């Protein structure tokens, strides 16, 4: 579709994100909340929907929901009710989902999303409410029946509903990444879209620029990766514009995203009459959140990505890019945060973490938790380099790999025993400089005739003679003195 046509329209997008909470037990019953176990093993009479049983709310799940609300600048509701959402589906044995309807535990918050151009956009969070997951239905090819596994039935969820503040697929992607980071930093969800612990539905409409009334809304489901959310939205915006441009009307419907073709397709709805007949859950008494409880949960909040980002760019003076890369993963951010408190050279610390450390982890498909060195060892290497006692390339190519193989050693001790420390001896280095000059008389002539770019060549020769152990600053200084003589 051409740019001019696209530009005539204003897309309006809101996201509904479901996050499975990392509790030990389910939302309203004590059976295990555990992914990947044998089918139909995490069961209880409540999960199975047996008559005469009573649900009971998981306190930790409530606290996780409160944490997400605090992290997204929401107001935490003090007087909560649960509600029944009624529908029949085989993966929901009770015939209703226990959720929150008119009294979501968190409301009126926002998430700050950093866009590619560096600007920050505030995306409103309408509400976050607590509910339970359904079981899993499997429709296998060749099977005449549907198979149902109830392990997931009753797993605690929070649903995070954004305001329709999102305008592009890119904004949706960045918002979702921010939500993923928040749940990971809070330790309340593992944020894995591929495994379904984080799920996203998008409400998308388009209207003419400047119009006051939103267009007909389409809900898109089945987007099981962050990039697919961006792709589905981009596709859906163009599809809707094409319909309107052709004089048609967009149907308000639910569509599924097909990752293989990159398109969305109309889905038959689960409940033809979309009437869930919500009413207050009579089996659960009200949930009242006291000041004391709220303050205790607030005090447990860890450092969040936005706070670390501010510290890294502010106090530590790192670039926006470096800070963004570092806060991207919680474990990396926390490792760097600790390292930055052990060395005055934050930029070098950032380079080590984003360079050699990340390469080591990526090559071996490891996570930060598996990294064999501690922050003190890395700080030791940085200190040796900054003191001119160790050359960076020797540090990264020899000392760093040695320490990885001998994780109990400290940087200075290992560098000494391997003979990697620079030859700080001024006199010895000066002699070697003279050797280099003597071995390359023609180049010396050229240099003195004005070809200053030869400095690098002389430096290379000198490093060869010292086995890379010359303090680069001192070597450079001695070379220039000898050459410029």
């Amino acid at each position: 579709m051409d740019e001019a046509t696209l530009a005539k329209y204003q897309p309006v997008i809101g996201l509904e994100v479901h996050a499975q909470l990392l509790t030990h037990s389910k939302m309203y019953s004590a059976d295990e909340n555990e992914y990947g176990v044998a089918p139909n093993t995490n069961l209880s009479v409540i999960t199975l929907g047996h008559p005469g049983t009573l649900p009971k709310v998981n306190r930790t799940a409530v606290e996780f929901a409160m944490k997400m609300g605090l992290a997204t600048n929401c107001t935490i509701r003090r007087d909560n009710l649960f509600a029944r959402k009624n529908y029949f589906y085989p993966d929901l044995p009770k015939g209703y989902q226990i959720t929150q309807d008119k009294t979501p535990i968190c409301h009126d918050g926002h998430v700050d999303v950093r866009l590619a151009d560096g600007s920050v956009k505030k995306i409103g969070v309408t509400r976050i409410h607590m509910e339970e997951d359904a079981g899993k239905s499997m429709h296998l090819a060749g099977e005449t029946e549907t198979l149902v596994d109830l392990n997931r039935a009753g797993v605690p969820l929070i649903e995070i509903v954004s305001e329709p503040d999102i305008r592009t697929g890119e904004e949706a992607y960045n918002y979702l990444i921010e939500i993923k980071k928040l749940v990971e930093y809070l330790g309340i969800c593992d944020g894995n879209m591929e495994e379904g612990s984080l799920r996203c539905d998008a409400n998308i409409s388009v209207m003419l620029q400047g119009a006051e009334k939103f267009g007909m809304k389409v809900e898109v489901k089945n987007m099981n990766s962050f990039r697919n959310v961006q792709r589905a939205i981009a596709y859906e915006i163009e599809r809707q514009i094409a319909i309107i441009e052709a004089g048609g009307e967009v149907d308000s419907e639910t569509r599924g995203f097909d990752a293989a073709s990159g398109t969305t397709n109309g889905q038959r709805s689960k409940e033809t009459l979309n009437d869930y007949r919500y009413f207050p859950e009579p089996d659960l008494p009200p949930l009242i959140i006291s000041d004391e409880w709220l303050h205790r949960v607030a005090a447990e909040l860890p450092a969040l990505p936005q706070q670390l980002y501010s510290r890294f760019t502010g106090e530590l003076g790192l670039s926006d890019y470096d800070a963004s890369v570092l806060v991207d993963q919680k474990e990396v951010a926390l490792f760097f945060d600790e390292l930055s408190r052990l060395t005055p050279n934050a930029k070098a610390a950032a380079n080590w973490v984003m360079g050699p450390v990340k390469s080591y982890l990526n090559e071996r498909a490891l996570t930060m938790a598996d990294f064999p060195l501690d922050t003190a060892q890395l700080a030791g290497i940085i200190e040796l380099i900054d003191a001119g006692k160790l050359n960076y390339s020797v540090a990264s190519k020899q000392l760093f790999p040695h320490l990885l193989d001998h994780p109990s050693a400290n940087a200075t001790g290992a560098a000494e025993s391997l003979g990697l420390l620079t030859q700080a001896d001024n006199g010895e280095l000066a002699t070697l400089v003279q050797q280099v000059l003597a071995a390359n008389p023609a180049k010396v002539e050229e240099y003195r005739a004005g070809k200053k770019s030869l400095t690098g060549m002389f430096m290379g020769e000198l490093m060869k003679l010292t086995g890379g152990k010359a303090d680069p600053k001192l070597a450079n200084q001695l070379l220039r003195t000898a050459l410029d003589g």
Partner: protein
Amino acid sequence: MSTDLGTLRGLAHLARLEFDATREQQMLGDLNNILDFVAQLEGLDTTGVEPLVHLSQEVNVLRDDEACNTVSHQDGLRNAPRKDSDYFRVPKVLE
């Protein structure tokens, strides 16, 4: 207060209830009687009365997050009309 056949049929569908079509008018009459009975509440002045959701005064009946499977795999599947060694089996939901 009265409702119509369309609503009656919609409710029956949502509740997955079936009834003899010849008794539709009778069912509608019963449903309207129930609605009229409850509609008496509309005649009361409830100005300043807080909605009463729960009769009990209890609040915050919560559970610590401790996991324990109380029904075994075999027992869980036992009452299912259709099952195999792993799963509940139900009529195909998607074509």
